[in-house]
């Protein structure tokens, strides 16, 4: 059930990783990949014993602003891992324009993910493991439908998280990212159904987009995240 794109996501897929890998970096990648493989193995064992239980290894997002930044980092990890898998082998019949858009989005999400990783430094949670087995990566409808769900979810997550931040600096950074997520959401929605960039399912009668709390967002994202996430220390107001 663990998706092997997790190790790709860490080491960078072919075509993404450009600069020569230093010896030190190689070993750190190798170590992480090994950890991932071990995670995958233990997960498989769990499947046999109890398909509904998640592996015990859990990450704690933490508290305060760092907790919220880790929450954003977790969501960016999810999005980046998804688009890396999408780009590794595009769905059947993908047009040149669709490939261009999805590749652009992939690099934006990797930029977001790596930004949070570096900004958090020693406070950063580790690499999460994902389960994309419910997605048919050969199917346009499945891939774009999932992309739409992830982008709309991301927008609602940042819209709901802004008020949980204490620092205006971090709030601005979240603001810089959320409008790009909204651009992605609109672009993907337009690919699925031209003109659906801001449908009534996401923009209400007052002209407001969706905002969700971290527990609401994590409940929706849960089916794709294998790693157990402890969000109980996040701020609530």
């Amino acid at each position, binding site marked *: 059930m663990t998706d092997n794109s997790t190790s790709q996501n860490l080491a*960078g897929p072919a*075509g*993404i*990783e*450009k*600069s020569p*890998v230093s010896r030190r*970096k190689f070993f750190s990648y190798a170590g992480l990949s090994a950890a991932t493989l071990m995670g995958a193995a233990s997960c498989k064992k769990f499947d046999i014993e109890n398909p509904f239980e998640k592996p015990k290894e859990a990450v704690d997002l933490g508290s305060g602003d760092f907790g919220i930044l880790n929450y954003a980092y977790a969501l960016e990890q999810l999005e980046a891992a998804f688009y890396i898998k999408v780009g590794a082998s595009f769905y059947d019949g993908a047009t040149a324009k669709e490939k261009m*858009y999805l590749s*652009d989005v992939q*690099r*934006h999400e*990797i*930029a*977001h993910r*790596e*930004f949070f*990783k*570096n*900004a958090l430094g020693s406070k950063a949670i580790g690499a999460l493991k994902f389960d994309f087995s419910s997605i048919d990566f050969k199917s346009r409808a499945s891939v774009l439908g999932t992309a739409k769900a992830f982008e709309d979810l991301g*927008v609602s997550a*940042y*819209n*709901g998280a*802004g*008020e949980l*931040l204490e620092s*205006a*600096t971090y*709030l*601005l*950074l979240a*603001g*810089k*990212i*959320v*409008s*790009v*997520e*909204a*651009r*992605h*959401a*609109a*672009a993907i929605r*337009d690919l699925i159904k031209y*003109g659906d*960039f*801001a449908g009534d399912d996401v*923009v*209400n*009668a*007052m*002209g*407001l*987009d*969706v*905002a969700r*709390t971290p527990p609401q967002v994590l409940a929706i994202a849960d089916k794709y995240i294998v790693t157990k996430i402890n969000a109980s220390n996040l701020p609530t*107001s």
Partner: protein
Amino acid sequence: MNLHNVIDQIEKVDPEVYERLNGRRAAMKSLANLGGKFALATVPLALGSLLKKAYSQTPSAQILDVLNFALTLEYLEAEFYNKGLAASGLIPAGDDRMAFEVIAKHENAHVVFLIATIKALGGEPVKKPTFDFTAGNGSNAGPFAGVFSNYDLYLAVSQTFEDTGVRAYKGQAGFLISSNAVLRAALQIHSVEARHAAHVREIRYRRPSALVVGMPLPWITLNNSNIASPLVQPSYNGEEITMQAGIQIVGINGFEITKEDASEAFDEPLTKAQVLAIVDPFIV
């Protein structure tokens, strides 16, 4: 919009609204006395009196300033789209017209929402300015003369307004940090403006013209406006930065992230002064 809808919408903006109002029942009862269904025009009033009870704390003058600044921009956008939709032969029937009807609906809703919010907080909403969409400061013969007869020009101005609006809200967010409910609502408008911007850019991508430079993508690359007019450049300057919080995004952690990618991945704010300078030629 019926009563339950209004209540639901408020609850989305502020899940704790019922605690502030001594419970949902009390809130429902006070609104129910106003009648089962609201005409849209009465919504601000009903919302206003409801929200006034919920947020009895005096908001800072700064928050009201931000909301009135936002209202000015929403007036600008709403009237631009209302006039565009009313101009015969401007917006092609079909996908384009439907898109601008959606955008106009949202901008008009933002005007209604901001007026209601400002009143609810005890402030005085600014009056709608007189606009000159030719950017002629009242001459109605400015550099964008023909904006309501030349669709390519209309699209270029629309894209500029939407991208500027995104940057304007982003620049104000920090001033709203003391009010969770107002900050949340501002962010909820901000992302809608970004959806609009992405779609108008998509329309321009699909419709080459002398006014389209390069390939407008849904996101902003470097400081490219993709518009053949130097007048809109201030709305895009600054979007090209690749450093975020002291972290270089280009090539970050060994990943192949170009300066184009890095600029696209983060939208940048504008200050109120920068935005007012940009919209000044449009306001008489």
